[in-house]
């Protein structure tokens, strides 16, 4: 598998706090890369740096052979990087369909074509019956699917998902996990932040573990679960338990 995204020594500080320090990793085409770490580890900042929402202090982000470091978010989207947000950002006063059409308009010039494409994606995320509902009327799980559908409508090669199962009820989680696996099956490369260790171990090809803004491990799930630094930082030590 070829490398789709390469992150080299990416760093960002806010005042004296090092949100990301020399983070390096790569993402192979077609894989699911899990990103884990306790609260404040710098996971969402990493997504913001990759997608241009936050400017990096140093380091670079390479998408295929293109340096996309500190480029505007809209341009990064147009280069094939889609994302969802930890704190959901639906267009609340618009319908689900209208939300997704906005994403589809990135590559479609014709509104009718964009609408049909949006409908296909809404069907893909199993919300076709809710298409005319306002975003504010949807449940948290449905809004997660909305955000996913909206990002998918931009035809991303790489999709960054920030806590796709966060804040949803237990019954909704299997459907969302199935959706992530469906994305992989459709050839979309996924980088996902996740707190649910069982899920991340099950779905990820590789895992990047962060703690206090630093990379502490980058390996396959089996090795991550046995990594002492990860256990210390994220899962807790035997002593602490």
């Amino acid at each position: 598998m070829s490398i789709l995204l390469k992150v080299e020594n990416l760093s960002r500080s806010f005042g004296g706090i090092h949100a990301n320090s020399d983070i390096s990793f790569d993402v192979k085409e077609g894989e699911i890369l899990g990103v884990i770490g306790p609260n404040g580890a710098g996971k969402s900042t990493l997504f913001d740096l990759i997608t241009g929402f936050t400017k990096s202090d140093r380091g670079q982000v390479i998408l295929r052979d293109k340096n996309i470091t500190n480029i505007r978010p809209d341009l990064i989207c147009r280069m094939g990087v889609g994302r969802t947000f930890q704190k959901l950002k639906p267009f609340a006063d618009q319908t689900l369909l209208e939300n997704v059409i906005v994403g589809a308009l990135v590559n479609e010039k014709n509104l009718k074509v964009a609408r049909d494409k949006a409908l296909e994606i809404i069907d893909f995320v199993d919300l076709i019956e809710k298409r005319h509902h306002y975003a504010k009327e949807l449940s948290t799980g449905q809004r997660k699917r909305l955000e996913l559908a909206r990002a998918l409508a931009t035809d991303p090669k790489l999709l960054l998902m920030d806590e796709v199962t966060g804040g949803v009820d237990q019954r909704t989680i299997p459907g969302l996990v199935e959706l992530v696996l469906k994305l992989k099956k459709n050839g979309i490369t996924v980088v996902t932040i996740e707190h649910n260790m069982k899920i991340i171990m099950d779905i990820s090809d590789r895992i990047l573990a962060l703690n206090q803004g630093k990379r502490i491990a980058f390996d396959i799930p089996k090795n991550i679960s046995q990594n002492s630094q990860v256990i210390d930082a994220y899962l807790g030590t035997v002593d602490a338990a």
Partner: protein
Amino acid sequence: MINNISAKLLEAKNEPLWYFNKNSLIIIGVIVLSLLLFPFASPSKFAIHLMMMIFMHAVMAQSWNVLAGFSGQISLGHAIFYGIGAYATAYFYVKLHITPWIGILIGIGISGFVAMLIGIPILRLKGHYFAIATLLIGISFQVVFQRWPEVGSSSGLWIPINRDSPWTSMQFHKSKVAYYYISLIFFIGTFFLVWLLNRSKLGYRLRAIRDQSDAASSLGIHVSKYKIIAFVISAMIMAPMGSIYAQYVLIVDPNNAFNVDISILVLLISVMGGVGNIWGPIIGAVILIPISEFSRIYFGGTGHSIDLIVYGVLIIIICIFRPAGIVSLIPRSFREREKAK
């Protein structure tokens, strides 16, 4: 991505892109016809004047609504573009003898250009900062025109009366009916333009920016560029109202043309009617403008500002009980963006 096309998807794809509510179309048709025939019912001069003011203020509020309602930027300086429109027709007619009809187009062009120049730096500001910046720039325009001899400084420009060629000079001294139809055409034209905008790709993008600018940015929308586009369109809608009013009263001065009251009034009309809704500015103008005009008649002069007290009370009531404006009282099925459920 899609392997199996479900029956529900097929059904959804067969739906029309836009739904037109027959009842609302009939109501719009009847209203437009009534407005066209209104002058034939021998109304008083005041009634014609009142209707004109409603049309003009609805257009101005619609202009503000394009910026605030569609792209989420609150402007407190929209009088800038009203003033530019007024001065453009007056200046080019007085100094260069160019017919006001061309002057209106020049005013639209200058307003759009000025909006772009102002917009590039200040549309980077968010929320209150943008509002304060527009307020101060609006006041600056008033001060500059008060001190600019070429446009008559504080006295402004007096448009010479021309009784020989009313259509060329856009001066109608025998009756206000011509002004009524001119403002009606702009009223209907603006409504149609904003209706189209609302359904266009640009409309989708502007609403996305209004609701969540970060999310819009993550979906490939260049937020600053589209905010500037909204600002320019908004300014270009506002300018002709200044031009028409200048031709109506035949005098343009900086205290009236760039008056901050105009900026506040268009905001109040939109908020009262419903921001972000195409009907909002019309409903707001229909309610607020008669209050203003009748208070002038009954209390004399500027109405002892009674209208402002009434506005204030009404806005407080609206903000408490109907924050989405009076338009929210209308059943959803009559409103424009309702889809079949």
